[in-house]
């Protein structure tokens, strides 16, 4: 029995169980943190957004897929979403309902940051972290409306 317990394979397994368990539980906790947070913060910093302030942000990236952002753009023409800040990485438009707390970034610099964002997203900044980021991928304006209002009314 002793010899069995001392076998290299079991030692190897035990070692991994003891090391692996805490790592596994830490990994579960950290899954809430967005993988590409650093890139988002760098971009927000470039835009001059206060990243220490807790806020909900709707971000619509121009340039990669025009069909992906169309429902979001249509939505903004008729609605002012319940978010603290809207960021549009494209040109200024006077058509949107929202007038304040909206940032336009027509310089095309968004693509330079490793954000993992390729369609409209909404996320929160809390205690210096990006949290609860979800893709608002929709094929119609109505679908987009359901997604964003589902998020903001939580």
């Amino acid at each position, binding site marked *: 029995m002793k010899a069995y317990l001392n076998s290299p394979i079991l030692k190897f397994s035990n070692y991994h169980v003891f090391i692996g368990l805490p790592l596994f539980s830490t990994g579960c906790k950290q899954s809430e943190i967005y993988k590409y947070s650093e890139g988002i913060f*760098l971009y927000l910093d470039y835009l001059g957004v206060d990243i220490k302030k807790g806020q909900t942000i709707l971000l619509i990236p121009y340039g990669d897929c025009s069909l992906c952002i169309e429902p979001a753009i249509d939505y903004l023409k008729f609605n002012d979403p319940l978010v603290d800040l809207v960021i549009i990485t494209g040109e200024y438009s006077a058509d949107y309902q929202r007038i304040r707390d909206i940032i336009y970034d027509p310089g095309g610099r968004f693509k330079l940051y*490793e954000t*993992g964002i*390729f369609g409209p997203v909404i996320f929160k900044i809390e205690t210096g972290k990006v949290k609860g980021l979800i893709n608002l991928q929709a094929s119609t304006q109505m679908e987009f409306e359901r997604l964003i209002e589902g998020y903001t009314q939580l």
Partner: protein
Amino acid sequence: MDIDRYMIRFILILLIFIAGCKPRIQDLDICIREKEAQLTDFHLRTDSLGVVGAFSFTAFEKDQIEFLAAWNEALNAIDIYNLDEGSIIDRIIIDEEGPKGIPNVDALFYQEDIIYLIDAASKRILKVGFDHRIELLNLRNIDFNDSRNPDMVFFSVSPEFGSVPLIHDHLVYFPVGTQTNFESVDYYKENVVGVYDLQESQGILSFGNWDKGYVQKNGYFGSLGEVSLSRFEDGIAISFPISPVVSLYDWHGDKVKDIWMASQTFPKQMEGLPRYNDDLQRERNFLVTSPWFLKTFYHAKKKSLIRFEKKEQRLKKPDQTLNSTLFGEWYLHVSNDDSFFVCIDQYDINGYDHFLPISFPFKDGILIKKLNDENESILEFSYLEIQ
């Protein structure tokens, strides 16, 4: 007796094992001569409405004059430039719909006074003559006589990677794909070229395999999953953005030889991303850091195959922003038919100031579109003479 039988089995298994272990790319000759790229300016005069911003264009020679036909998306027109004079000479307006119209133009190709426009999605080709005569070809449900149902075949057109039809005599060679999930291995199992006979109005055959890199375990390469078709003196050259090899076929679809057209350090088989990958950032990062190729094209006068290879680079700059997928350091490889495509001449190209997808043969070299045009009525190119 039994021992003999086991021995034979053992030898057979050993042979299969050894065959499996052989490198996928057999030892191709790698002979590289480094050359210095000497660029001179070339200007193309246009009118205020002329643009060469899209990938859709074709360069050709007619009556010993060199021309460029480019798709003008803003006007839905073909702009024809006389490259020898350096100016626009004609504009042919095309209807967007109707019996002589085409809803979208993915690529242009040329043969004998006819410019062909292709809309891959609607499977329409428009034949446009220099005399402005227009004829529509509807190419739905072509049977290329392979294992695929005609409904499953689509024209895979992507000019920046050289996925553009070729025409030789009365045969059109289409880059084709299969209607299935392009992340799956199945997508990369069927032939990549479909041959269509214009005289008989029917498909004939398909040929050409995907590079083996696409069917390995981690064989997903995102937008690099394209086939590049190019003519050469005696047939058709097939290559892929992830492969250092260019395969030469005769016009009947039989392979003639493989040639190495890459830098010495390019991996023999590149490892891609895991299949069914939903991380688009990872895909973009791969394009930034990895080496890969744009289209392969042929310079008839120099009898040379030409291709651009992007050099490996870091993901990020010191300020933590990403490096560009396209605008970086590149090689230009030139392989000559007179030397049986054994040696390649390799030039270093600064891709920061150029838009490499817009490049084509001209005189004894190639023209490459510059990135910024200072003057709206002049299109700026760099001319690189092939030594």
